[in-house]
């Protein structure tokens, strides 16, 4: 049985020893503009609302109303149990096109349409950050025509969608080695990043010409520069110095993804977010990226919920709850799940069992 806890009173930042990638508990740090924006969203999004079943959401009027509320999240998912930062390796465009006898450019265009849908879904469902692997530094060795097509596609997308980014509140960050890109694309990327930097609805990180190892090496070079300038001694270098220099630090609240999805059945990371995916759940699916839809996304988020649930069971049924005199909770490595664990523990055990037994289409 669950131990009886007075969760609201005893847990605060000073007694919990968890990493900074978690949502901070209320009152634990200075509120920024983003917190204010989120707080004004929260009461509207989380009253005792009914989550529509998938069939009911087909009724257009209801759908319109609920889209306004942003509550189109099918049960048993709840906004509190969603991963905050999702990373996607959009693999399989060329193979999808080849299977249909189309040129690979058709595959990339279809992949772009899927990406659009994915960003919309993430906005609606409440995922706070989405990182996509658009172009790897290893992809420069692909045929010249394909590479040129992709670069043109990126330019057109950034130009056309800038208005939409501003309207929907999407903050765009571009990571990767921009020196390999053409001048016009570099300029356009900088313009998009500057114009959208105050948006708060969702963070979209696009990795173009990106390599995880080069990112870490670049961070190392920045640190070496600091050492050379005498600002830092080599012995004082810690992991947080390195994390600050990584490019994903453009989202300081959760630079590390909670969930990484790779489509098309490949079981590798391929040099994507190497440092940041230390504790990320890695989910691989056999669907090609252009075929990846709402149902696949929902299934993976449900699997993520199951993983969380397993952590909660481990957390609550073992005996990790003890406070020794030196203060911090020993969460046995589950620190990063604290807000979700608190949420799931506040539900009754049988209700969370309902989550597990829920049958979906």
């Amino acid at each position, binding site marked *: 049985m669950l131990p009886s806890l007075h969760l609201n009173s005893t847990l605060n930042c000073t007694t919990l020893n968890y990493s900074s990638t978690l949502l901070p508990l209320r009152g634990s740090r200075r509120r920024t503009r983003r917190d204010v924006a989120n707080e004004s969203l929260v009461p509207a999004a989380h009253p005792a609302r009914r989550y529509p079943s998938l069939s009911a959401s087909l009724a257009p009027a209801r759908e319109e109303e609920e889209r306004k509320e942003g509550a189109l999240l099918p049960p048993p998912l709840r906004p509190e149990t969603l991963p905050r930062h999702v990373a996607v390796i959009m693999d399989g465009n060329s193979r999808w096109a080849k299977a249909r006898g189309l040129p690979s450019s058709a595959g990339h265009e279809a992949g772009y349409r899927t990406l659009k849908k994915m960003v919309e879904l993430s906005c609606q469902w409440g995922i706070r950050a989405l990182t996509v692997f658009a172009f790897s530094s290893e992809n420069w060795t692909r045929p010249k025509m394909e590479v040129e097509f992709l670069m043109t596609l990126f330019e057109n997308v950034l130009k056309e969608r800038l208005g939409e980014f501003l309207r929907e509140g999407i903050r765009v960050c571009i990571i990767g080695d921009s020196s390999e890109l053409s001048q016009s694309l570099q300029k356009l990327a900088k313009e998009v990043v500057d114009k959208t930097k105050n948006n708060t609805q969702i963070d979209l990180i696009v990795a173009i010409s990106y390599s995880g*190892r080069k990112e870490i090496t670049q961070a190392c070079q920045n*640190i070496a520069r600091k050492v050379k300038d005498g600002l830092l001694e080599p*012995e004082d*270098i810690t992991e947080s110095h390195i994390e600050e220099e990584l490019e994903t630090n453009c989202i300081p609240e959760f630079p590390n993804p909670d969930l990484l999805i790779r489509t098309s059945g490949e*079981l590798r*990371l391929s040099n994507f977010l190497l*440092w940041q995916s230390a504790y990320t759940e890695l989910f691989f699916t056999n669907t090609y990226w252009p075929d990846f839809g709402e149902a696949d996304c929902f299934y993976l988020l449900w699997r993520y919920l199951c993983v969380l649930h397993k952590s909660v069971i481990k957390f609550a049924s073992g005996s990790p709850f003890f406070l020794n005199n030196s203060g911090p909770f020993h969460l046995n490595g589950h620190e990063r799940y604290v807000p979700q664990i608190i949420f799931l523990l506040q539900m009754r055990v049988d209700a969370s069992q309902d989550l597990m037994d829920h049958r979906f289409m």
Partner: protein
Amino acid sequence: MEKHDRKPESNIFASVWRFLRRCLFLVLSLGPMPNHIAFIMDGNRRYAKRRNAEEGSGHGVGFTTLTSICQYCYEMGVKYVTVYAFSIDNFKRKPEEVQSLMDLMKEKIDELLEEESIVQKYGFRINFWGSLDLLSEPVRLVAEKAMTHTANNTGPVLSVCMAYTSTNEIMRAIKKSCARKSSRPQGYVNCDGESVCADINSYVTVADVEENLDTADCPDPDIVIRTSGETRLSNFLLWQTSLSHLQNPSPLWPEFSLRNLIWAILEYQKIYPYLEARRRLTKKEN
């Protein structure tokens, strides 16, 4: 002598089983064999819990599994085996559990250095990767002793990651490369004998970081197997597993057997052509 007299039937059985295994591995080696396999040995505590045994006993069974897997890898011709024994995050567990794990590790490392262990039989070279200074004194001493004793062995390499996380390893590599570069004078002599001023962009390169990692003398893993079905890497070899085949079979580590190992290698052989093409592309790009 006594061992041989005790059970002649079991010796015949063992040699028949060894012969069958050798045939099986011969068939398997018709396809491409991995050179380096990495294991995340997850599920020991769950194994003990499921059998209602006492808490620390799962790890002992896990060690037996480790020795048998090492033996199979040797027989198959896999030259490098890496295992994730203890993470820096595991220090956050209960102090009694951490202490019992440390005691178990010391006991097992001592056992490995004995005469009849597989290390001596097959000539394994043992490496310990990680921040060994975070370990208690007796464990650290026995680990260093094991490394020096087996340093000249020419057989397969068993690397045990203790007090290890990949981010810690990369941080130490960066520290070392920064320290080395800052102690060198500003300009340096390149391979043509000309004196060149250090350009800040080539100050630290990918190669610099790689040569200072713990895994500098080891190739990247071909397969990473995490038992018990978990889908995370948990800070294990993040830099090195960029192109490795990630597998997460559902048996717990103590239940991981020859059958699971063969299945893992068959899966690897299935996608090997595609993986090899990717690797060649990466080499070309670098």
